[in-house]
């Protein structure tokens, strides 16, 4: 199945993309998706302890299972205001 991945802020610069469509196994967890996305991006992988994930625009735990067509955002610490 495929899911849509979005990167923001510093992560967008580290990944070199604002969004991409990624193929993962059925029911893959967000953690697996991030491993896939950061496989060839060591800079992105290093950032893992200081980012959070959102699934379909809700903050989500790393062991949240995914469904086809989900939108997953990887978000660095927020700094609005």
């Amino acid at each position, binding site marked *: 199945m495929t899911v849509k991945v979005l990167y923001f802020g510093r992560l967008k610069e580290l990944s070199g993309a604002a969004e991409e469509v990624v193929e993962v196994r059925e029911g893959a967890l967000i953690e697996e998706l991030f491993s896939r996305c950061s496989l060839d991006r060591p800079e992105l992988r290093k950032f893992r302890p200081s980012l959070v994930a959102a699934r379909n625009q809700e903050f989500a735990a790393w*062991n949240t299972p995914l469904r086809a067509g989900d939108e997953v*955002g990887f978000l*660095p610490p927020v700094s609005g205001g």
Partner: protein
Amino acid sequence: MATPNSEDRIEITRGRIPNAELASQVRTDEDGAVATFDGCVRNHSHGRTTLYLEYEAYEEMAMAKMREIVAHIRANYAIRRVAMMHRLGRLEIGETSVFIAVSAAHRAAAFDACRYAIDTLKKTVPIWKKEFFSDGAVWADGELPPVPAETPAAKPASN
């Protein structure tokens, strides 16, 4: 999910925030207080001189989180109307990046709700700022939003 009142004005904009308009929009004859928060661009950060800022957002999610904040203050404080606007793009020194106005019959509720709203916005709304200096640029230190706890056996997603 709780929804804000239809009289509330919640927006993300790339233009100038109409501070005075928002402050007057929340006023009604039944209110004795309007509390506002005007977040503006400071000319220094960690001892360096800031030239300007650039803001970006996960816009759909940011709007959802801003609506949640407004729904929360409606449910928990005796307030009348709320306006909350955040600006994106390049902002110059002194410009308003976020503006919140809350009206209430009495000042305590207006102050408390406004304070909760800006504090929570800074922790949970997916917006990021990049600070530009004469010798480079950095993403501002931010806060990691609270995320649901991991469970050893998360339920599989169901249709």
